[in-house]
């Protein structure tokens, strides 16, 4: 479970306020206009931003004052998830030990994770020899070996085509189910939310306007701003 309790955060001249609960083992998509604070929400959970007031809890633990590496969190970004000069295997291994001090068991786990994301034959490749989708799979493999209960995704598949995006969502959903992860994903594609997320939050101007089961949220007519944000998409998409 992730809980933001009365969290306030100021970025430039936007005052944000978050008070929300993401239940354990749920998959929540966050949608909403650009500049509304979607990435900031993830950064607050991951520890890249510290709230001006309020608390962030993961499970029963208050993580508000913890640095990013001590939070039970993995985060995958839209881009630059890999270090360009290191091969695929080493990039994944960094998830276990930054100094690459690895036991035999660790090595086995890395190999298993690479097999799980379908990159077993790419171990020795450098990132610039991979496609965009394959690079994101490296990030997923690293999240697998790090094995933290919370997975944050910041528009991770925005640069991929529709079919590839589905594949990646399937991969993440399978991982979420198998390990009972709490996933929060920022997305610009409402269909991604509908495809993969059990819950969807609509976020605008630094506030979570609504957080509901996905089907309910997309059917709702009582959420201010949502209709304008989605525009014609609902009638075309359904």
């Amino acid at each position, binding site marked *: 479970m992730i809980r933001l309790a009365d969290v306030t955060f100021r970025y430039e001249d936007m005052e944000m306020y978050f008070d929300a609960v993401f239940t354990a083992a749920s998959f929540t998509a966050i949608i909403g206009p650009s500049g509304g604070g979607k990435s900031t929400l993830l950064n607050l959970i*991951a*520890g*890249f931003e510290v709230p001006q007031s309020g608390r962030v809890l993961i499970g029963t633990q208050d993580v508000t004052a913890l*640095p*990013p*590496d*001590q939070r039970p*969190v*993995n*985060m995958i*970004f839209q*881009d*630059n*998830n890999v*270090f*360009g*000069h*290191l091969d695929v295997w080493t990039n994944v291994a*960094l*998830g276990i030990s*930054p*100094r690459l001090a690895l036991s035999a068991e660790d090595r086995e786990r890395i190999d298993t994770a690479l097999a799980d994301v379908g990159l077993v034959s790419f171990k020795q490749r450098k990132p610039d020899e991979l496609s965009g989708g394959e690079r994101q799979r490296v990030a997923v493999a690293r999240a697998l070996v*790090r094995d933290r209960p919370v997975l944050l995704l910041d528009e991770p598949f925005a640069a991929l085509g529709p079919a590839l995006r589905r594949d990646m969502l399937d991969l993440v959903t399978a991982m979420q189910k198998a390990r009972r992860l709490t996933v929060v994903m920022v997305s610009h594609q409402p269909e991604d939310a509908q495809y993969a997320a059990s819950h969807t939050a609509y976020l605008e101007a630094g506030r979570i306007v609504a957080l509901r089961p996905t089907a309910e949220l997309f059917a709702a007519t009582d959420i201010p701003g949502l209709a304008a944000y989605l525009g014609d998409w609902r009638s075309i998409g359904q």
Partner: protein
Amino acid sequence: MPWRNDTGDVVTVQPLRAPGYLALALLGVALAAGFLPVLWMGARQGAGAADPYILRVLRFTLLQAGLSTLLSIIGGLLLARALARRQAFPGRDFVLRLLNLPLALPSIVVIIGIIEVYGRKGWLGGAFSIYGLQGILLAHVFFNVPLAARLLLAELERVPAESWKLAAQLGFQTADIWRVVEWPQLRAGLPGIALLIFLLCASSFAVVLTLGGGPGATTLEVAIYQALRADFDPQRAVMLALVQFLLCGSLVLLAQRWGGLMGTRASGATAARRYDARRGVAIIIDAGLIALGLILLLPPLLAIIISGASAIHADATLLRASVTSLLLGSASAAMAFLLAWPLAQLAARSDAWRRGSGLAVLAAWIVPPAVLATGWFITFIAHASSTALAASLVVAMNGLMALPFVFQPLSTAIAQAASAHDRLCLGLGLSGFGRFWQIDLPALKRPIGLSLVMGLILSLGDLTAISLFGTQDFMTLPSLIYRQMGSYRFDAAVGTALILGILVLALSSLSERWSRPR
């Protein structure tokens, strides 16, 4: 940017080629007049003329340039990393601006400041001798640590935001960040930066002329000057020039293959936020390194201001040298501009011209000034010497030396203007002078001003050309400073240096305003 008209023909703006060819031809003549006599005389003398003196000078050139580069890179690396890790502290902007100063000021001005602090009668009371190798190294470090720091800082600021977040999430310690993030990023830019600094040190003139000591501590560039002006030994100058040409020419060509000396590598966008080095130890280390940088940089600059203010001798000599400097500088800037303009126009619209011009403007880097001067000396001065001839040679040399710095802002701006306006002008049937007056001039006013000021600044600081061709009654501000230093009037030299420094800084603050996007 080709496009098709109604009948389907590809249409592009084709600027006149003739001025471009003329500019290339003039460059070719200047190079040939400098280089062919050297080659011709060198070939006649044969390799047997390579006496031990020349080998000794070559060895010292390589030694001091190598050591200067090594020290500058180490210092620059430490300073750049400290500044990259400390993203916000009061005075950070001031430190960054200070890093630009040593290279923005004429080198003779900076040298005066260094002598005022470290010299025999300096603030430190002459704790060590600043003449010979250690003096040359000190001055080169003073110029190039800030340069290296700035360029390496720009490299570090190109690390993507996500890498810093990943490093924080994966629990990277200082050593891990260095190994996985910082060093790989720096490694890419390091060879080019080291090469640039080596080249600057191998061909540095003012530093070695003023701080070098006798034949044991001289470089090719200065030895050529001495052979021509002091020993009247053109044969020796020619051999030195050939060696210098082989050294610098191959270094420049090497650098061009590695991305170019004139690449725009200064930092632009704001750097991504970092999450490391928040603990006390890291803060103390970084603060210490930045303080060391300030201790290196500030005293000589302050010395010029403090000692110079009370030592300005406003006499007729100073006035005449100022006027001469401004006149020669304006002429050089105009010359460089007239060569750069047609080349930049063509480079904006053709890949072949862009590559060709990029190399052509480096003429005075590939064939270093002293080498050109040797040939020009043999071609012109040996036959008839006059102030008018000397002045035109100084202007030509300074124009060539300033050319890359004049070409750079101009070609960038013209390329932008071309991609913005070419199709529209074709559509409107606007071309030639009408287009220049109504479209290009208003859009390019600032870049034109910027490139002229750059040319003026570089020429105002020149000591090389004026030393090679100047005479007793033909002096610029830098050569007046050098003269005053040599005739035991050091306080007057500091005063003149202050005036030259102020003049150049005023101009560069103007150019800085023009180079900022509107």
